[in-house]
């Protein structure tokens, strides 16, 4: 019998170092070159991956340092959006002091993989993307030919096909739509899992206004009457009612370890109660990850969180085994 392994994943946009932040501004002002910037991105991407390897992260991602926001490289590589995404309206990214450029859909969306790879560089085995419905909700739609969500799902079909061809193994969709996971993205996820058997698709829900306080959306995740072939990541609240725990069998678990810079508070580590919840689920399906983008932290704190994540997975594994 193989040994139980509680897995861990890092996703989303990683923080840039102070040097890279400064270089970005310098390139914009003509004081430095794009080549200098690209060289530093390559160094920091390698460092980010090495950190995750050292921490024992099961599913590392490259930190997406070329992504100005979660939408831009896709928009820049897609016909059917209004041109000029770099000058599009600056719009607040949910509850944060960060922003994205709001794309406008003006036609049928047609993905150009070559342009996309020019934007983001080579893809690794694990890639996170906004959930299609979240992506659609963040766009302004000025195209009557097809509803925005369907238009974006078509676009994602092309993107996923390209990912599969490029050797990507695991795609994590991040659902930010406030108000809870809806049936639609789960249903869509199921369909797409069937279409792309070479890809493992997952869904990470960020709904709720604060990652530390959202309740577990297990009802939505498990009461839809279908078996979800891929996995759903979800928060697990410390006070999860006992009656809800058996429903967690299809649910992976995340720890809200991004908010704040400390790593020594009880809420930033697993407690016995949470370990018990994991044990009462299916530990073999559990993947520990962080909540929102680690870019919300300065680099050195994000590095600490990645290390903590690896430690939490090992701790959980040991504690589950001891129960």
């Amino acid at each position, binding site marked *: 019998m193989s040994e139980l392994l509680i897995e861990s994943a890092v996703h989303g946009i990683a*923080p*840039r170092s*102070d040097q890279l*932040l400064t270089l*970005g*501004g310098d*390139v*914009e002002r003509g004081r430095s070159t794009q080549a200098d910037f690209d060289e530093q991105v390559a160094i920091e991407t390698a460092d980010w991956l090495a950190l995750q390897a050292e921490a024992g992260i099961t599913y590392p991602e490259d930190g997406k340092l070329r992504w*100005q*926001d979660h939408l831009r490289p896709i928009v820049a590589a897609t016909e059917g959006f209004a041109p000029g995404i*770099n*000058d599009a*309206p*600056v*719009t*607040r990214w*949910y*509850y*944060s*002091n*960060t*922003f*994205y*450029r*709001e794309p406008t859909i003006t036609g049928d969306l047609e993905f150009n993989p070559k342009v996309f790879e020019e934007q983001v560089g080579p893809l690794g085995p694990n890639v996170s993307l906004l959930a299609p419905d979240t992506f659609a909700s963040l766009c302004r739609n000025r195209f009557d030919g097809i509803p925005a969500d369907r238009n974006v799902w078509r676009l994602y079909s092309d993107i996923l096909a390209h990912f599969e061809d490029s050797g990507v193994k695991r795609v994590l969709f991040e659902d930010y739509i*406030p108000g809870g996971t809806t049936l639609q993205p789960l249903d869509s996820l199921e369909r797409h899992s069937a279409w792309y058997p070479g890809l493992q698709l997952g869904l990470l829900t960020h709904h709720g*206004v*604060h990652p530390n306080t959202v309740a577990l959306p297990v009802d939505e995740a498990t009461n839809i009457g279908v078996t979800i072939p891929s996995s759903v990541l979800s928060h697990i609240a410390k006070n999860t009612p006992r009656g809800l725990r058996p429903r967690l069998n299809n649910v992976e678990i995340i720890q809200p370890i991004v*908010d*704040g*810079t*400390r790593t020594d508070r009880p809420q930033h580590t697993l407690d016995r109660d949470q370990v018990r919840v994991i044990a009462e689920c299916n530990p073999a399906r559990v993947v520990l990850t962080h909540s929102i983008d680690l*870019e*919300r*932290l*300065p*680099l*050195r*704190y994000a590095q600490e969180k990645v290390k903590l994540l690896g430690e939490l997975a090992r701790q959980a594994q040991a504690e589950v085994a001891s129960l």
Partner: protein
Amino acid sequence: MSELLQTQEVGSLAKPDWRVAVVGDKPIGQGSYDALRAWSEEYGSNDASSYGQQVLESAQSEFASVGRYSDRTKETVRDLAAHYAVQLQEHAGLDIVYDGEQDRSEMYQHSIARTLGFAWRGRVRAFDTKSYKKAACIGEPSISEPWHSDEVTRLQRLTDKDIKVPITGAYTLAAWSYNEHYTQRADLVRALARNVIRPNIIALLEQGVSWIQIDEPAATTVPGEVPLFVESFNESVRGLVGRFSVHLCFSDYTLLVPHIEKLENCSQLSLEFANRDGHGLGTATSDRPAYEVLKDIVRYAPGTSIGLGVASVHEDTIETPELVRDRILRAVDIVGDPALIYPSPDCGLRTRSWPVASEKLLAVSHGTRLAREII
């Protein structure tokens, strides 16, 4: 009696290269001299140009000999930057001005650096290449002294125009910080309002300032906490005699609408609109979609004036006066009373160069004149 449609700034302007160099203890480049000369020719006099040149040469000489600038030199250079910032706004024809926040590094950083109970954690990217230095609250916030006095004293010397002092509000300071002291963020917000913002406001009022704009760009970012923002605004100004307004931007104003009437003593809502508006001319609903939310605002807060964002601060394209005019006319049509409309840029223009900021403010003034003619 003042004219209808008073034009106003919202806060910040970029810092000139020479101001950044001196305050950051870096050498002054030749380009700084050229820029200063150009601005003196455009807005000042030969005397002003000559004085500015002298200030920079003297500073450069000091740097060459000791490798840094004295506090006195830095203050002189900041004064010079404020002088030009005011001239820029006066030249553009604004009715209500400030000093472009030339003493402030940035709206969050400047305030937190002067607030006890915080520790810096590092830089965090905001968007594109823009980042800010983020702090954690590690103790009860308080201040050792109010921090706007010097810049206001200087401004009162520099201009005869009406002034409006922007200060960053309690909710935004809390929302943009890590809370590592209080169990509940609400307690941090309340402490900032009570111990930090209110004492600063009282000091400004004692200094003779009549209008204070509380900047709260984070006010609606957490829908469930909008009442907390309202509470913090009220706690900051309750019982004080003065004119108080609030500035929000790049967020969903509909979340604020149901709570507007609970804002006490708030005479103006200053809001970004141009960023999210169409670029074509026209005053129909379909031409000016960004301004539709004003209908709800007017319903919940009749009589509250609107700081109307009519020029985007995130693009270099200069709005035409006709586009500004149409945005104003659409707002007047919705609000009903032109005396309640104060045309302005969407937000502080700190992300734009001074030539672009100047052109945008000129467009605001020209467009306002066109609107006045029609009204």
